[in-house]
């Protein structure tokens, strides 16, 4: 039996998260146990679980002696394995916003039970479809009346400022956040603001004044720890007001660049005829119905049209990847409105999330987070080959390595969409053809079925990876 610690959990002194033969177990150390007992007795965790805000868990204490002997473990919790762990720098704006609102809701509910959260890490929120869920059962501890919100700065840097970057300036948070895993530093963000921003009381309070006080409190540290005399620094009513005020502000935030993006409007502006769309939908439906994949990755999901078809055909969960923020927003909103198990994730396929953080393993890259049962790569390959200059054989090898099954849609040079890509550049893609594509595919996979979609030669290919 192998017990592997999940790397992202190493910072927490309260316990760790382990993968044991496919199961996910969370330890509660003896030093944190009194806090956990207190929180558990309040009934808060059960209430949060009942609302769907907290990942369910059950005690499996009888396995402590065999799995963690002599390690000072008081409790062992088993939690469901998430289908796909995503990072905040992969979330679209609306996903980060819903995660921020969930965090505040959990904190407000906790406060009512005399409990608080010890941190405000965005990594403590994960998604099931488009629905956020809090996953860290050990973040809760007893609230001491009048204590300050220790995680205020962390909340600002990991949730609020990345949202404001898009809401105020129309800049997506993903690249900056990926470069700085703890979010956007308060002092850096303040430098982006103009004096007019000080007219907004929320910005003035949570960003301008907050950052100014950080920068101008040097030399005062001595006075902070002079005497241990407990009083009321932040009365509970003021703490609650702070949380409710933040929630109301974040609820109203929208992207400054909310005009229609290229791909958000793709369903209306693409070059498909209605009958071709029907054929494509039928093909995807038949593929999923026949192969019965549970967990699909839709690469270049746009607004989730074909992810929805896959779900209707029997798939249980789809991760929809795209690099276009407008398309991801449309997909997210649709998934929420229609209650679809689609999780939209930001991904530049030519530059996917790498392994990073402590020892380059704290936040695993795309490949380190499991594989799909099947992939959909509809009208995707030409973007990688022609717009990004990635050789066709490399694109196909990568695609085949992701899942044992898949559908790819080949778009030939004659197609108007490819012509548009080639209109301002030299055609250096002499080997880009359906024949070359199929020939290379057949070296690694069996072609189950093909379907010609258009007179220009758009072709759907259903393939099955060969066992190497």
């Amino acid at each position, binding site marked *: 039996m192998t017990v592997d610690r999940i790397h992202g959990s190493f*910072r*927490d*002194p*309260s316990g760790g998260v382990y993968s044991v033969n496919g199961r996910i177990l969370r330890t509660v150390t003896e*030093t*944190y146990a009194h*806090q956990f007992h207190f929180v558990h007795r309040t009934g808060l965790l059960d209430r949060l679980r009942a609302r769907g805000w907290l990942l369910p868990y059950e005690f499996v204490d009888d396995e402590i002696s065999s799995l963690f002997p002599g390690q000072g473990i008081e409790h062992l919790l088993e939690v469901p394995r998430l289908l796909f762990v995503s990072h905040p720098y992969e979330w679209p704006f609306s996903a980060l916003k819903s995660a921020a609102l969930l965090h505040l809701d959990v904190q407000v509910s906790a406060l009512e039970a005399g409990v608080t959260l*010890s*941190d*405000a890490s965005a990594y403590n929120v994960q998604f099931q479809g488009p629905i956020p869920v809090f996953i860290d059962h050990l973040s809760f*501890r*007893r609230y*001491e009346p*009048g*204590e*300050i*919100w*220790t*995680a*205020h*700065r*962390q909340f600002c840097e990991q949730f609020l400022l990345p949202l404001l970057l898009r809401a105020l300036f129309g800049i997506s948070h993903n690249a900056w956040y990926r470069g700085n895993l703890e979010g956007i530093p*308060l002092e850096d963000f303040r430098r982006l603001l103009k004096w007019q921003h000080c007219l907004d009381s929320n910005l003035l*309070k949570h960003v301008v*004044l*907050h*950052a*100014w*006080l*950080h*920068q*101008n*409190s040097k030399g*005062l*540290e001595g*006075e*902070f*720890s*002079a*005497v*241990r*005399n*407990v*009083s*009321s*620094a*932040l*009365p509970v009513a*003021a703490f609650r*007001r*702070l949380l409710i005020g933040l929630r109301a502000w974040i609820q109203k935030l929208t992207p400054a660049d909310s005009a229609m993006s290229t791909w958000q409007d793709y369903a209306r502006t693409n070059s498909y005829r209605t009958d071709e769309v029907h054929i494509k939908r039928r093909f995807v439906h038949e593929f999923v119905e026949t192969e019965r994949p549970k967990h699909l990755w839709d690469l270049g999901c746009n607004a989730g049209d074909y992810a929805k078809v896959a779900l209707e055909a029997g798939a249980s969960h789809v991760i929809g990847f795209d690099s276009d923020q407008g398309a991801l927003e449309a997909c997210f909103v649709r998934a929420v409105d229609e209650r679809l198990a689609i999780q939209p994730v930001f991904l530049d396929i030519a530059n996917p999330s790498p392994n990073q953080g402590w020892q380059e393993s704290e936040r695993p890259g795309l490949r380190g987070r499991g594989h799909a049962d099947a992939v959909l790569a509809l009208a995707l390959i030409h973007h990688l080959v022609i717009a990004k200059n990635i050789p066709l054989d490399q694109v196909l090898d990568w695609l085949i390595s992701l899942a044992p099954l898949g559908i790819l849609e080949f778009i030939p040079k004659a197609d108007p969409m490819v012509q548009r890509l080639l209109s301002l550049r030299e055609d250096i893609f002499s080997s880009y053809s359906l024949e070359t594509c199929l020939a290379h595919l057949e070296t690694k996979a069996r072609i189950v079925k093909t379907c010609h979609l258009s007179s220009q030669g758009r072709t759907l290919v259903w393939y099955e990876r060969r066992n190497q």
Partner: protein
Amino acid sequence: MREKRDCLVKRFSVVLGISFLTLPFGPQDAFAYVDPGSGSILLQLMLGGVAGIGVVAKLYWQRIRDGVFRILHKS
């Protein structure tokens, strides 16, 4: 009379300030592995009410006075 009043205000501010500011370093520290940062503590003191604003003003009083003095001295 004025001296007595100043002395009382000073004592009140110091006691209040120290007691407010030391709260975050209580027993919960063992599990508060996030560094709140001094700026957050000061901001929340201010958000906590009028007394907290007074405490923060008191902490910065020396700097404010020095700043005003520098400006007046220059002019």
